[in-house]
Protein backbone atom coordinates (compact mmCIF):
# COMPACT_ATOMS: atom_id res chain seq x y z
CA UNK A 1 0.00 0.00 0.00
CA UNK A 2 1.11 3.55 -0.59
CA UNK A 3 0.75 6.28 1.98
CA UNK A 4 -0.57 8.86 -0.46
CA UNK A 5 -3.61 11.10 -0.33
CA UNK A 6 -7.09 9.77 0.13
CA UNK A 7 -9.58 10.85 -2.53
CA UNK A 8 -13.18 10.76 -1.44
CA UNK A 9 -14.50 12.28 -4.63
CA UNK A 10 -13.67 11.71 -8.28
CA UNK A 11 -11.03 13.72 -10.08
CA UNK A 12 -13.47 15.92 -11.97
CA UNK A 13 -15.06 17.27 -8.84
CA UNK A 14 -12.72 17.91 -5.94
CA UNK A 15 -9.39 16.41 -6.88
CA UNK A 16 -7.55 18.20 -4.09
CA UNK A 17 -9.53 16.91 -1.15
CA UNK A 18 -7.30 15.09 1.31
CA UNK A 19 -7.63 13.20 4.50
CA UNK A 20 -5.57 10.70 6.38
CA UNK A 21 -5.57 7.01 7.01
CA UNK A 22 -7.62 7.56 10.14
CA UNK A 23 -10.62 8.47 8.00
CA UNK A 24 -11.57 4.84 7.39
CA UNK A 25 -14.66 3.31 8.92
CA UNK A 26 -14.55 1.70 12.32
CA UNK A 27 -14.47 -2.03 12.91
CA UNK A 28 -17.66 -3.83 11.96
CA UNK A 29 -20.23 -4.53 14.62
CA UNK A 30 -21.29 -8.14 14.40
CA UNK A 31 -23.84 -9.02 17.00
CA UNK A 32 -24.39 -12.56 18.10
CA UNK A 33 -26.49 -14.14 15.39
CA UNK A 34 -29.98 -15.41 15.99
CA UNK A 35 -30.57 -19.04 15.18
CA UNK A 36 -33.44 -20.93 13.67
CA UNK A 37 -34.50 -24.55 13.62
CA UNK A 38 -35.18 -24.85 9.92
CA UNK A 39 -31.75 -23.55 8.99
CA UNK A 40 -30.01 -25.74 11.53
CA UNK A 41 -32.08 -28.75 10.48
CA UNK A 42 -30.95 -28.29 6.89
CA UNK A 43 -27.34 -27.65 7.86
CA UNK A 44 -27.22 -30.82 9.94
CA UNK A 45 -28.43 -32.83 6.91
CA UNK A 46 -25.67 -31.64 4.58
CA UNK A 47 -22.94 -34.06 3.68
CA UNK A 48 -19.93 -32.24 5.13
CA UNK A 49 -17.75 -33.59 2.33
CA UNK A 50 -20.12 -32.41 -0.40
CA UNK A 51 -17.82 -29.59 -1.52
CA UNK A 52 -14.81 -31.90 -1.52
CA UNK A 53 -16.58 -34.15 -4.04
CA UNK A 54 -17.95 -31.25 -6.07
CA UNK A 55 -15.83 -30.88 -9.22
CA UNK A 56 -17.05 -28.81 -12.15
CA UNK A 57 -15.83 -27.93 -15.58
CA UNK A 58 -14.85 -24.34 -16.12
CA UNK A 59 -17.69 -22.38 -17.58
CA UNK A 60 -17.74 -18.86 -18.84
Amino acid sequence: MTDGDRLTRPLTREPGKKSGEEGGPSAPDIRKPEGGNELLRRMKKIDPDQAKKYRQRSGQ
Partner: protein
Amino acid sequence: MRQILAGIETEYGLLVEGRGAEEQVDDAMALVRGYPGECHVGWDYRYESPRADLRGFKLNHLAFDPEDAKFDAGRSFGEAHEVRSDRVLPNGARFYNDHGHPEYSTPECWSIFELANHDCAGQKVVHRAAQAFAEREGLSVKTFKNNTDFHGASYGTHEGYLVPRELGFDRLFLDVLPMMVVRQVLVGAGKVGSENSRSVEFQLSQRADFLTEKANAETLYRRPIFNTRDEPHSNPQQWIRLHVICGDANMIPEATARKVGLMKLALALCEIGQAPIWRFKDPVRSFVDISRDQSWKFRIELDQRSWTTAPDILESYFAAAEACLELDEELRWVITSSRRLLSDLYEDFNRFRRHVDWAAKRHMLTQFMEEEGMEWSDPHLRSFDLEYHNADPEESLHAALAQMGEVVPDPDEADQLGCLEGVNEPTRALARGLAISRFNQHLLGVCWRTLTFNVDGSPIEVDLPPNAAYPQQLRTADDVGTFISMLRGVQ
Protein backbone atom coordinates in the same frame (compact mmCIF):
# COMPACT_ATOMS: atom_id res chain seq x y z
CA MET B 1 -32.89 9.28 -19.29
CA ARG B 2 -32.91 6.47 -21.82
CA GLN B 3 -34.11 3.13 -20.48
CA ILE B 4 -31.49 0.38 -20.65
CA LEU B 5 -32.53 -3.10 -21.71
CA ALA B 6 -30.81 -5.84 -19.67
CA GLY B 7 -30.71 -9.58 -19.16
CA ILE B 8 -28.94 -12.14 -16.97
CA GLU B 9 -27.52 -15.49 -18.02
CA THR B 10 -26.60 -17.94 -15.25
CA GLU B 11 -24.61 -21.13 -15.61
CA TYR B 12 -25.63 -23.55 -12.87
CA GLY B 13 -23.37 -26.02 -11.13
CA LEU B 14 -24.43 -29.65 -11.57
CA LEU B 15 -23.85 -32.49 -9.13
CA VAL B 16 -25.14 -35.92 -10.18
CA GLU B 17 -24.83 -38.82 -7.78
CA GLY B 18 -21.87 -41.02 -8.64
CA ARG B 19 -20.77 -38.92 -11.60
CA GLY B 20 -18.23 -36.18 -12.11
CA ALA B 21 -16.78 -33.60 -14.44
CA GLU B 22 -15.98 -36.28 -17.03
CA GLU B 23 -19.70 -36.92 -17.55
CA GLN B 24 -20.83 -33.36 -16.91
CA VAL B 25 -21.45 -32.42 -20.54
CA ASP B 26 -23.54 -35.57 -21.12
CA ASP B 27 -25.49 -34.92 -17.95
CA ALA B 28 -26.13 -31.26 -18.71
CA MET B 29 -27.31 -32.15 -22.21
CA ALA B 30 -29.68 -34.77 -20.86
CA LEU B 31 -30.98 -32.45 -18.17
CA VAL B 32 -31.74 -29.65 -20.62
CA ARG B 33 -33.24 -31.95 -23.26
CA GLY B 34 -35.61 -33.38 -20.71
CA TYR B 35 -36.99 -30.01 -19.62
CA PRO B 36 -40.62 -30.86 -18.89
CA GLY B 37 -42.23 -27.67 -20.17
CA GLU B 38 -43.37 -26.07 -23.38
CA CYS B 39 -40.44 -24.90 -25.52
CA HIS B 40 -39.01 -24.43 -28.98
CA VAL B 41 -36.09 -26.74 -29.76
CA GLY B 42 -33.07 -25.14 -31.41
CA TRP B 43 -31.27 -21.82 -31.73
CA ASP B 44 -30.27 -19.73 -34.71
CA TYR B 45 -26.50 -19.24 -34.38
CA ARG B 46 -25.95 -17.05 -37.42
CA TYR B 47 -25.52 -13.87 -35.42
CA GLU B 48 -23.25 -15.20 -32.67
CA SER B 49 -19.76 -13.68 -32.60
CA PRO B 50 -17.98 -14.65 -29.36
CA ARG B 51 -14.50 -13.94 -30.79
CA ALA B 52 -15.29 -10.38 -31.92
CA ASP B 53 -13.71 -7.72 -29.72
CA LEU B 54 -15.15 -4.28 -28.97
CA ARG B 55 -11.74 -2.81 -29.70
CA GLY B 56 -12.16 -3.62 -33.37
CA PHE B 57 -10.51 -6.98 -33.99
CA LYS B 58 -11.38 -10.66 -33.86
CA LEU B 59 -9.55 -13.34 -31.88
CA ASN B 60 -8.34 -16.42 -33.75
CA HIS B 61 -9.55 -18.58 -30.91
CA LEU B 62 -10.75 -18.30 -27.33
CA ALA B 63 -8.58 -19.59 -24.51
CA PHE B 64 -9.83 -22.57 -22.51
CA ASP B 65 -8.92 -24.00 -19.15
CA PRO B 66 -6.23 -26.66 -19.72
CA GLU B 67 -7.63 -28.57 -16.75
CA ASP B 68 -10.83 -29.17 -18.71
CA ALA B 69 -9.08 -30.57 -21.79
CA LYS B 70 -8.13 -33.75 -19.99
CA PHE B 71 -11.78 -34.63 -19.40
CA ASP B 72 -12.44 -35.06 -23.11
CA ALA B 73 -9.19 -36.57 -24.41
CA GLY B 74 -9.99 -38.38 -27.64
CA ARG B 75 -13.70 -37.71 -27.35
CA SER B 76 -16.08 -35.68 -29.53
CA PHE B 77 -19.56 -34.67 -28.48
CA GLY B 78 -20.79 -33.92 -31.98
CA GLU B 79 -21.98 -30.70 -33.57
CA ALA B 80 -21.88 -27.66 -31.29
CA HIS B 81 -25.58 -26.93 -31.65
CA GLU B 82 -26.39 -30.53 -30.73
CA VAL B 83 -24.27 -30.27 -27.61
CA ARG B 84 -25.89 -27.03 -26.62
CA SER B 85 -29.33 -28.62 -26.82
CA ASP B 86 -31.08 -25.25 -26.94
CA ARG B 87 -34.57 -24.75 -25.65
CA VAL B 88 -36.43 -21.43 -25.99
CA LEU B 89 -39.30 -20.92 -23.58
CA PRO B 90 -42.67 -19.15 -23.92
CA ASN B 91 -41.29 -16.20 -21.94
CA GLY B 92 -38.56 -15.65 -24.50
CA ALA B 93 -35.83 -17.11 -22.29
CA ARG B 94 -33.12 -19.49 -23.51
CA PHE B 95 -32.24 -22.68 -21.63
CA TYR B 96 -29.25 -24.70 -22.82
CA ASN B 97 -26.05 -26.54 -21.99
CA ASP B 98 -23.00 -24.31 -21.81
CA HIS B 99 -19.75 -26.21 -21.23
CA GLY B 100 -21.49 -28.75 -19.04
CA HIS B 101 -23.56 -26.23 -17.12
CA PRO B 102 -27.32 -25.87 -17.51
CA GLU B 103 -27.65 -22.19 -18.37
CA TYR B 104 -30.74 -20.02 -18.08
CA SER B 105 -30.73 -16.75 -19.98
CA THR B 106 -33.59 -14.53 -18.89
CA PRO B 107 -35.77 -12.66 -21.32
CA GLU B 108 -34.66 -9.08 -21.87
CA CYS B 109 -36.18 -6.68 -19.33
CA TRP B 110 -36.48 -2.93 -18.86
CA SER B 111 -37.27 -3.16 -15.16
CA ILE B 112 -34.61 -4.33 -12.71
CA PHE B 113 -37.31 -5.87 -10.51
CA GLU B 114 -38.88 -7.72 -13.43
CA LEU B 115 -35.42 -8.99 -14.27
CA ALA B 116 -34.90 -10.19 -10.70
CA ASN B 117 -38.24 -12.04 -10.90
CA HIS B 118 -37.19 -13.70 -14.16
CA ASP B 119 -33.85 -14.64 -12.63
CA CYS B 120 -35.79 -16.39 -9.84
CA ALA B 121 -38.05 -18.06 -12.38
CA GLY B 122 -34.93 -19.37 -14.09
CA GLN B 123 -34.02 -21.13 -10.88
CA LYS B 124 -37.39 -22.90 -11.08
CA VAL B 125 -36.75 -23.95 -14.67
CA VAL B 126 -33.37 -25.43 -13.81
CA HIS B 127 -34.72 -27.17 -10.72
CA ARG B 128 -37.67 -28.65 -12.61
CA ALA B 129 -35.37 -29.97 -15.30
CA ALA B 130 -33.07 -31.40 -12.62
CA GLN B 131 -36.00 -33.13 -10.88
CA ALA B 132 -37.14 -34.68 -14.16
CA PHE B 133 -33.58 -35.81 -14.91
CA ALA B 134 -33.27 -37.33 -11.43
CA GLU B 135 -36.51 -39.26 -11.86
CA ARG B 136 -35.46 -40.60 -15.26
CA GLU B 137 -32.01 -41.66 -14.08
CA GLY B 138 -32.96 -42.77 -10.58
CA LEU B 139 -30.12 -40.68 -9.18
CA SER B 140 -29.79 -37.71 -6.88
CA VAL B 141 -29.29 -34.54 -8.96
CA LYS B 142 -28.44 -31.18 -7.45
CA THR B 143 -28.06 -27.85 -9.20
CA PHE B 144 -26.39 -24.81 -7.69
CA LYS B 145 -26.80 -21.15 -8.56
CA ASN B 146 -23.24 -20.17 -7.73
CA ASN B 147 -19.97 -19.50 -9.55
CA THR B 148 -17.31 -21.82 -8.19
CA ASP B 149 -16.55 -25.44 -7.37
CA PHE B 150 -13.95 -24.49 -4.72
CA HIS B 151 -11.32 -26.44 -6.68
CA GLY B 152 -10.39 -23.74 -9.17
CA ALA B 153 -13.22 -24.02 -11.71
CA SER B 154 -15.57 -21.09 -12.14
CA TYR B 155 -18.71 -20.65 -14.21
CA GLY B 156 -20.44 -17.40 -14.82
CA THR B 157 -23.43 -15.25 -14.15
CA HIS B 158 -23.29 -12.71 -16.93
CA GLU B 159 -25.26 -9.53 -17.41
CA GLY B 160 -26.04 -7.97 -20.77
CA TYR B 161 -26.81 -4.27 -21.22
CA LEU B 162 -27.91 -2.67 -24.47
CA VAL B 163 -25.95 0.55 -25.03
CA PRO B 164 -25.41 2.76 -28.10
CA ARG B 165 -22.48 1.77 -30.33
CA GLU B 166 -21.21 5.36 -30.30
CA LEU B 167 -20.08 4.99 -26.68
CA GLY B 168 -17.29 2.66 -27.76
CA PHE B 169 -14.80 0.71 -25.70
CA ASP B 170 -12.61 3.52 -24.35
CA ARG B 171 -15.43 5.50 -22.81
CA LEU B 172 -17.29 2.48 -21.48
CA PHE B 173 -14.15 1.05 -19.94
CA LEU B 174 -13.21 4.24 -18.11
CA ASP B 175 -16.71 5.05 -16.93
CA VAL B 176 -18.02 1.69 -15.74
CA LEU B 177 -14.88 -0.19 -14.64
CA PRO B 178 -14.83 1.47 -11.19
CA MET B 179 -18.44 0.38 -10.62
CA MET B 180 -17.60 -3.18 -11.72
CA VAL B 181 -14.85 -3.28 -9.11
CA VAL B 182 -16.67 -1.78 -6.13
CA ARG B 183 -20.26 -3.02 -6.37
CA GLN B 184 -19.30 -6.37 -4.81
CA VAL B 185 -19.49 -4.62 -1.43
CA LEU B 186 -23.27 -4.55 -1.87
CA VAL B 187 -23.94 -7.44 -4.24
CA GLY B 188 -21.18 -10.03 -3.81
CA ALA B 189 -22.44 -13.55 -3.11
CA GLY B 190 -19.64 -14.40 -0.67
CA LYS B 191 -17.26 -17.35 -0.66
CA VAL B 192 -15.47 -19.43 1.94
CA GLY B 193 -11.73 -19.53 1.34
CA SER B 194 -9.57 -18.89 -1.67
CA GLU B 195 -8.85 -20.57 -5.00
CA ASN B 196 -5.55 -18.94 -5.72
CA SER B 197 -2.27 -18.80 -3.91
CA ARG B 198 -3.21 -16.28 -1.20
CA SER B 199 -5.36 -17.77 1.52
CA VAL B 200 -8.33 -16.00 3.11
CA GLU B 201 -11.08 -17.10 5.47
CA PHE B 202 -14.02 -15.57 3.67
CA GLN B 203 -14.38 -13.16 0.79
CA LEU B 204 -17.12 -11.03 -0.75
CA SER B 205 -16.90 -12.16 -4.36
CA GLN B 206 -17.18 -15.63 -5.86
CA ARG B 207 -15.40 -14.47 -9.02
CA ALA B 208 -12.48 -12.40 -7.72
CA ASP B 209 -10.08 -15.36 -7.61
CA PHE B 210 -10.65 -15.94 -11.32
CA LEU B 211 -10.18 -12.41 -12.67
CA THR B 212 -6.66 -11.87 -13.95
CA GLU B 213 -6.96 -9.16 -16.61
CA LYS B 214 -8.34 -5.65 -16.83
CA ALA B 215 -10.01 -6.15 -20.21
CA ASN B 216 -10.18 -8.82 -22.88
CA ALA B 217 -12.69 -10.93 -24.80
CA GLU B 218 -12.03 -14.19 -22.93
CA THR B 219 -14.58 -15.83 -20.66
CA LEU B 220 -13.32 -19.38 -19.99
CA TYR B 221 -9.74 -18.61 -18.97
CA ARG B 222 -7.66 -15.49 -18.30
CA ARG B 223 -10.94 -13.82 -17.40
CA PRO B 224 -11.13 -10.03 -17.30
CA ILE B 225 -13.06 -7.58 -15.15
CA PHE B 226 -14.25 -5.82 -18.31
CA ASN B 227 -15.21 -8.29 -21.02
CA THR B 228 -14.77 -6.92 -24.55
CA ARG B 229 -16.81 -9.54 -26.39
CA ASP B 230 -18.66 -7.74 -29.15
CA GLU B 231 -21.82 -9.70 -29.72
CA PRO B 232 -24.62 -7.14 -29.88
CA HIS B 233 -27.56 -9.50 -30.56
CA SER B 234 -28.99 -6.62 -32.57
CA ASN B 235 -27.94 -4.22 -35.32
CA PRO B 236 -24.16 -3.90 -34.78
CA GLN B 237 -24.07 -0.46 -36.37
CA GLN B 238 -26.38 0.83 -33.69
CA TRP B 239 -25.84 -1.19 -30.53
CA ILE B 240 -23.34 -2.77 -28.18
CA ARG B 241 -24.40 -5.42 -25.72
CA LEU B 242 -22.08 -4.78 -22.81
CA HIS B 243 -21.24 -8.27 -21.55
CA VAL B 244 -20.50 -8.09 -17.83
CA ILE B 245 -18.88 -11.26 -16.51
CA CYS B 246 -17.34 -10.18 -13.20
CA GLY B 247 -20.51 -10.38 -11.12
CA ASP B 248 -21.82 -13.15 -8.88
CA ALA B 249 -25.03 -15.18 -8.95
CA ASN B 250 -27.29 -13.69 -6.31
CA MET B 251 -29.75 -15.73 -4.30
CA ILE B 252 -31.43 -12.67 -2.77
CA PRO B 253 -33.60 -11.22 -5.57
CA GLU B 254 -33.24 -7.70 -4.23
CA ALA B 255 -29.47 -8.07 -4.64
CA THR B 256 -30.01 -9.13 -8.25
CA ALA B 257 -32.02 -5.96 -8.88
CA ARG B 258 -29.38 -3.82 -7.14
CA LYS B 259 -26.53 -5.46 -9.06
CA VAL B 260 -28.16 -4.52 -12.35
CA GLY B 261 -29.33 -1.14 -11.12
CA LEU B 262 -25.82 -0.11 -10.09
CA MET B 263 -24.50 -0.93 -13.54
CA LYS B 264 -27.38 1.00 -15.11
CA LEU B 265 -26.46 4.07 -13.06
CA ALA B 266 -22.88 3.89 -14.36
CA LEU B 267 -24.02 3.33 -17.95
CA ALA B 268 -26.56 6.15 -17.85
CA LEU B 269 -23.85 8.53 -16.60
CA CYS B 270 -21.49 7.25 -19.29
CA GLU B 271 -24.07 8.03 -21.97
CA ILE B 272 -24.23 11.70 -20.96
CA GLY B 273 -20.51 12.03 -20.27
CA GLN B 274 -20.95 12.60 -16.54
CA ALA B 275 -19.53 9.44 -14.95
CA PRO B 276 -17.12 10.13 -12.09
CA ILE B 277 -13.51 9.70 -13.08
CA TRP B 278 -11.38 7.32 -11.03
CA ARG B 279 -8.00 6.05 -12.15
CA PHE B 280 -7.07 2.80 -10.42
CA LYS B 281 -3.45 1.90 -9.99
CA ASP B 282 -4.30 -1.77 -10.58
CA PRO B 283 -8.01 -2.62 -11.08
CA VAL B 284 -7.49 -6.38 -10.82
CA ARG B 285 -5.59 -6.02 -7.57
CA SER B 286 -8.30 -3.69 -6.27
CA PHE B 287 -11.04 -6.17 -7.16
CA VAL B 288 -9.21 -8.92 -5.29
CA ASP B 289 -8.30 -6.70 -2.33
CA ILE B 290 -11.88 -5.54 -1.81
CA SER B 291 -13.13 -9.10 -1.96
CA ARG B 292 -10.64 -10.17 0.72
CA ASP B 293 -10.64 -7.14 2.99
CA GLN B 294 -11.54 -8.46 6.43
CA SER B 295 -11.47 -4.92 7.89
CA TRP B 296 -14.21 -3.74 5.49
CA LYS B 297 -12.39 -0.48 4.88
CA PHE B 298 -12.21 -1.35 1.17
CA ARG B 299 -9.25 0.87 0.36
CA ILE B 300 -8.37 1.28 -3.31
CA GLU B 301 -5.00 2.49 -4.57
CA LEU B 302 -5.24 5.16 -7.25
CA ASP B 303 -2.79 6.66 -9.68
CA GLN B 304 -0.40 9.32 -8.37
CA ARG B 305 -0.05 7.61 -4.96
CA SER B 306 -3.54 8.65 -3.87
CA TRP B 307 -6.21 6.32 -2.60
CA THR B 308 -9.92 6.12 -1.89
CA THR B 309 -12.50 3.58 -0.73
CA ALA B 310 -15.18 1.53 -2.43
CA PRO B 311 -17.97 3.33 -0.51
CA ASP B 312 -16.59 6.70 -1.68
CA ILE B 313 -16.66 5.52 -5.29
CA LEU B 314 -20.21 4.24 -4.96
CA GLU B 315 -21.27 7.55 -3.43
CA SER B 316 -19.63 9.43 -6.31
CA TYR B 317 -21.84 7.58 -8.79
CA PHE B 318 -24.91 8.28 -6.64
CA ALA B 319 -24.14 11.99 -6.37
CA ALA B 320 -23.44 12.31 -10.09
CA ALA B 321 -26.64 10.46 -10.94
CA GLU B 322 -28.72 12.70 -8.69
CA ALA B 323 -27.11 15.78 -10.15
CA CYS B 324 -27.20 14.87 -13.82
CA LEU B 325 -29.91 12.29 -14.54
CA GLU B 326 -33.68 12.33 -14.61
CA LEU B 327 -33.92 9.28 -12.41
CA ASP B 328 -36.85 6.92 -12.59
CA GLU B 329 -38.33 5.31 -9.49
CA GLU B 330 -36.19 2.18 -9.78
CA LEU B 331 -32.86 3.97 -9.99
CA ARG B 332 -33.86 6.27 -7.13
CA TRP B 333 -34.46 3.09 -5.13
CA VAL B 334 -31.02 1.82 -6.11
CA ILE B 335 -29.39 4.97 -4.76
CA THR B 336 -31.48 5.31 -1.60
CA SER B 337 -31.32 1.66 -0.61
CA SER B 338 -27.61 1.37 -1.42
CA ARG B 339 -26.75 4.41 0.68
CA ARG B 340 -28.69 2.93 3.54
CA LEU B 341 -26.84 -0.36 3.20
CA LEU B 342 -23.44 1.34 3.15
CA SER B 343 -24.39 2.95 6.44
CA ASP B 344 -25.82 -0.27 7.87
CA LEU B 345 -22.67 -2.20 7.01
CA TYR B 346 -20.86 -0.38 9.79
CA GLU B 347 -23.72 0.55 12.09
CA ASP B 348 -26.39 -2.14 11.82
CA PHE B 349 -24.95 -5.33 10.36
CA ASN B 350 -28.05 -7.30 11.32
CA ARG B 351 -30.04 -5.14 8.94
CA PHE B 352 -27.35 -5.20 6.26
CA ARG B 353 -27.20 -8.98 6.15
CA ARG B 354 -30.92 -9.24 5.28
CA HIS B 355 -30.22 -7.64 1.89
CA VAL B 356 -26.74 -8.80 0.91
CA ASP B 357 -25.82 -12.39 0.04
CA TRP B 358 -22.23 -12.35 1.28
CA ALA B 359 -23.32 -10.96 4.62
CA ALA B 360 -26.23 -13.39 5.00
CA LYS B 361 -23.91 -16.29 4.23
CA ARG B 362 -21.14 -15.05 6.49
CA HIS B 363 -23.56 -14.57 9.38
CA MET B 364 -25.07 -18.02 8.87
CA LEU B 365 -21.64 -19.65 8.88
CA THR B 366 -20.47 -17.67 11.88
CA GLN B 367 -23.52 -18.81 13.80
CA PHE B 368 -22.93 -22.44 12.91
CA MET B 369 -19.22 -22.24 13.70
CA GLU B 370 -19.95 -20.85 17.14
CA GLU B 371 -22.47 -23.56 17.90
CA GLU B 372 -20.33 -26.38 16.56
CA GLY B 373 -16.94 -25.10 17.67
CA MET B 374 -15.62 -24.90 14.12
CA GLU B 375 -12.92 -22.66 12.66
CA TRP B 376 -12.81 -20.91 9.28
CA SER B 377 -10.16 -23.37 8.23
CA ASP B 378 -12.62 -26.28 8.49
CA PRO B 379 -13.09 -27.60 4.91
CA HIS B 380 -16.67 -28.58 5.70
CA LEU B 381 -17.70 -24.92 5.66
CA ARG B 382 -17.46 -24.99 1.88
CA SER B 383 -20.24 -27.59 1.80
CA PHE B 384 -22.50 -25.16 3.65
CA ASP B 385 -21.44 -22.36 1.33
CA LEU B 386 -22.41 -24.54 -1.64
CA GLU B 387 -25.74 -25.46 -0.11
CA TYR B 388 -26.66 -21.80 0.31
CA HIS B 389 -26.91 -21.81 -3.51
CA ASN B 390 -28.90 -25.04 -3.97
CA ALA B 391 -31.62 -24.38 -6.57
CA ASP B 392 -34.00 -26.67 -4.68
CA PRO B 393 -36.05 -24.52 -2.28
CA GLU B 394 -36.57 -27.55 -0.03
CA GLU B 395 -32.83 -27.89 0.54
CA SER B 396 -31.29 -24.47 -0.07
CA LEU B 397 -29.88 -22.69 2.96
CA HIS B 398 -30.76 -19.38 1.36
CA ALA B 399 -34.37 -20.55 1.08
CA ALA B 400 -34.31 -21.51 4.77
CA LEU B 401 -33.08 -18.03 5.67
CA ALA B 402 -35.85 -16.50 3.56
CA GLN B 403 -38.44 -18.75 5.19
CA MET B 404 -37.22 -17.64 8.63
CA GLY B 405 -37.32 -13.96 7.67
CA GLU B 406 -33.55 -13.65 8.00
CA VAL B 407 -33.19 -12.29 4.46
CA VAL B 408 -35.64 -10.32 2.33
CA PRO B 409 -38.17 -12.66 0.74
CA ASP B 410 -38.32 -13.98 -2.79
CA PRO B 411 -41.03 -12.70 -5.15
CA ASP B 412 -44.48 -14.21 -4.68
CA GLU B 413 -44.83 -17.71 -6.05
CA ALA B 414 -47.56 -16.49 -8.41
CA ASP B 415 -45.24 -13.85 -9.85
CA GLN B 416 -42.50 -16.39 -10.43
CA LEU B 417 -44.89 -18.81 -12.11
CA GLY B 418 -46.21 -15.95 -14.21
CA CYS B 419 -42.67 -15.30 -15.41
CA LEU B 420 -42.54 -18.81 -16.83
CA GLU B 421 -45.64 -18.22 -18.94
CA GLY B 422 -44.66 -14.93 -20.54
CA VAL B 423 -43.41 -11.42 -20.02
CA ASN B 424 -45.24 -8.35 -18.75
CA GLU B 425 -43.08 -5.74 -20.40
CA PRO B 426 -43.32 -4.69 -24.06
CA THR B 427 -39.86 -5.99 -24.94
CA ARG B 428 -38.87 -8.12 -27.91
CA ALA B 429 -39.05 -11.09 -25.51
CA LEU B 430 -42.83 -10.66 -25.73
CA ALA B 431 -42.65 -11.28 -29.49
CA ARG B 432 -40.25 -14.21 -29.11
CA GLY B 433 -42.36 -15.81 -26.41
CA LEU B 434 -45.60 -15.39 -28.36
CA ALA B 435 -43.98 -16.86 -31.45
CA ILE B 436 -43.16 -19.97 -29.42
CA SER B 437 -46.47 -20.31 -27.61
CA ARG B 438 -48.64 -19.48 -30.64
CA PHE B 439 -46.73 -20.25 -33.84
CA ASN B 440 -44.04 -22.77 -32.93
CA GLN B 441 -45.02 -25.03 -35.81
CA HIS B 442 -44.02 -22.22 -38.20
CA LEU B 443 -40.71 -21.37 -36.54
CA LEU B 444 -37.55 -22.23 -38.45
CA GLY B 445 -35.15 -20.23 -36.32
CA VAL B 446 -35.08 -18.30 -33.05
CA CYS B 447 -32.39 -16.10 -31.57
CA TRP B 448 -32.18 -12.88 -29.59
CA ARG B 449 -32.15 -10.78 -32.74
CA THR B 450 -34.57 -12.38 -35.18
CA LEU B 451 -37.36 -14.87 -35.71
CA THR B 452 -37.51 -16.92 -38.90
CA PHE B 453 -40.84 -18.40 -39.94
CA ASN B 454 -41.83 -20.95 -42.53
CA VAL B 455 -44.73 -19.44 -44.42
CA ASP B 456 -46.12 -21.55 -47.23
CA GLY B 457 -42.75 -23.24 -47.66
CA SER B 458 -40.70 -20.03 -47.76
CA PRO B 459 -38.48 -18.72 -44.95
CA ILE B 460 -39.39 -15.26 -43.71
CA GLU B 461 -36.99 -13.59 -41.27
CA VAL B 462 -38.21 -10.79 -39.03
CA ASP B 463 -35.78 -8.52 -37.20
CA LEU B 464 -36.60 -7.70 -33.58
CA PRO B 465 -35.29 -4.21 -32.84
CA PRO B 466 -34.24 -4.29 -29.17
CA ASN B 467 -35.22 -0.76 -28.27
CA ALA B 468 -38.77 -0.90 -29.64
CA ALA B 469 -42.03 -1.17 -27.72
CA TYR B 470 -43.84 -4.38 -28.67
CA PRO B 471 -47.63 -4.00 -28.35
CA GLN B 472 -49.80 -6.34 -26.34
CA GLN B 473 -52.00 -6.53 -29.46
CA LEU B 474 -49.51 -9.08 -30.78
CA ARG B 475 -51.42 -11.52 -28.60
CA THR B 476 -54.48 -11.07 -30.81
CA ALA B 477 -52.88 -12.26 -34.05
CA ASP B 478 -54.84 -15.28 -35.24
CA ASP B 479 -52.41 -16.51 -37.86
CA VAL B 480 -48.69 -16.36 -38.52
CA GLY B 481 -49.08 -13.97 -41.45
CA THR B 482 -50.87 -11.43 -39.28
CA PHE B 483 -48.29 -11.92 -36.53
CA ILE B 484 -45.44 -11.21 -38.96
CA SER B 485 -47.20 -8.14 -40.33
CA MET B 486 -47.72 -6.79 -36.83
CA LEU B 487 -44.06 -7.45 -35.93
CA ARG B 488 -42.90 -5.57 -39.00
CA GLY B 489 -44.92 -2.59 -37.86
CA VAL B 490 -43.09 -2.40 -34.54
CA GLN B 491 -40.83 0.64 -34.27
